[in-house]
């Protein structure tokens, strides 16, 4: 039986609390696939004025006339009980779009750094970004067919990350695998939220 809901607003499916997670990593590493494995992909257009960020960016030589650029960004949305929503934002992969990250990262619960084990160096920048801003993150190594297998410990050594940062192997195409990655991240964020602030047992360099 269907209920007739006469309420004009404040329905049970309306968002009351919306949290966000960032999905970072090199270009083409599978960020969109990861988001799509657990949620429906929605497109988002961002358009940035390059003249705003010209200072310090050296590869703008020759494109002075190009005043704006359109960057497509994907996101996914998970809807939980009581109006709780979790948004997953795939960050633009190319380094030239990093200026956008601060805005996207503001207030984020945490981040998934997606690593391709054949091109580990592609995610160094993302790891630095989240370490410096003390945003909880997990490293997820995409182990799809043909990619060389490494143990999480080998990856941790290669990436030189703190022991408390979870390193998980995942197949970004599989829902269950992506769920595990997100669960590891939220567990880390819960640890962080209950740890005595601001100093924790972590090693800071």
């Amino acid at each position, binding site marked *: 039986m269907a209920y007739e809901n006469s309420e004009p607003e404040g329905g049970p499916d309306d968002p*009351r609390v919306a949290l966000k997670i960032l999905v970072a990593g090199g270009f083409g590493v599978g960020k969109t696939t990861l988001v799509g494995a657990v949620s429906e992909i929605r497109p*988002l257009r961002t*358009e940035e004025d390059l003249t705003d960020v010209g200072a310090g960016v050296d590869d703008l030589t020759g*494109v002075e006339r190009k*005043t704006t650029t*359109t960057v497509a960004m994907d996101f996914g949305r998970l809807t939980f009980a009581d109006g709780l929503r979790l*948004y997953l934002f795939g960050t633009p992969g190319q380094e030239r779009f990093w200026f956008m990250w601060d805005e996207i990262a503001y*207030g984020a619960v945490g981040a998934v750094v997606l690593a391709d084990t054949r091109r580990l160096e592609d995610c160094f920048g993302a790891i630095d970004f989240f370490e410096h801003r003390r945003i909880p993150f997990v490293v997820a190594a995409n182990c799809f067919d043909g990619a060389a297998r490494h143990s999480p410990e080998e990856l941790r050594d290669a990436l030189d990350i703190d022991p408390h940062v979870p390193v998980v192997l995942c197949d970004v195409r599989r829902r269950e695998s992506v769920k595990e990655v997100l669960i590891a991240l939220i567990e880390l964020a*819960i640890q962080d939220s209950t740890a005595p602030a601001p100093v924790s047992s972590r090693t800071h360099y």
Partner: protein
Amino acid sequence: MDGPKERWVGRDAGPLVRPYTITRGRTRTSGIRLDLVTILVATWNPVRDHMRLTSEQHRLLAMCRKPITIADLASEIDLPLKVVHVLLGDLCEHGLLQEVPQAQQTPTGRHDARLLMRVLNGLREL
């Protein structure tokens, strides 16, 4: 007149002029912080003529009859995020939209553990 080699548009860029025409040339938002996961809702205050709302702002206002995040608004209206920010900023300043208050972060910038537990349970039930 512009020379033939004048290039204002990058190869991958779509139509560039129109979005900022919508915002009357403005690229900055004043007022409240408009984050991707900020939730907005219409106040149902009357729309006055002097506000000179654009058709895009009328559309945004209609979408906000029920609470909605800025990410969803920008995706559905299919305009660049920055443009949407400016348009929404106007609507907020006119008192037509308001932010839905959400659970606050702790002073250290972390999230409430009980809220995160709800996320965790939600993920496990997916």
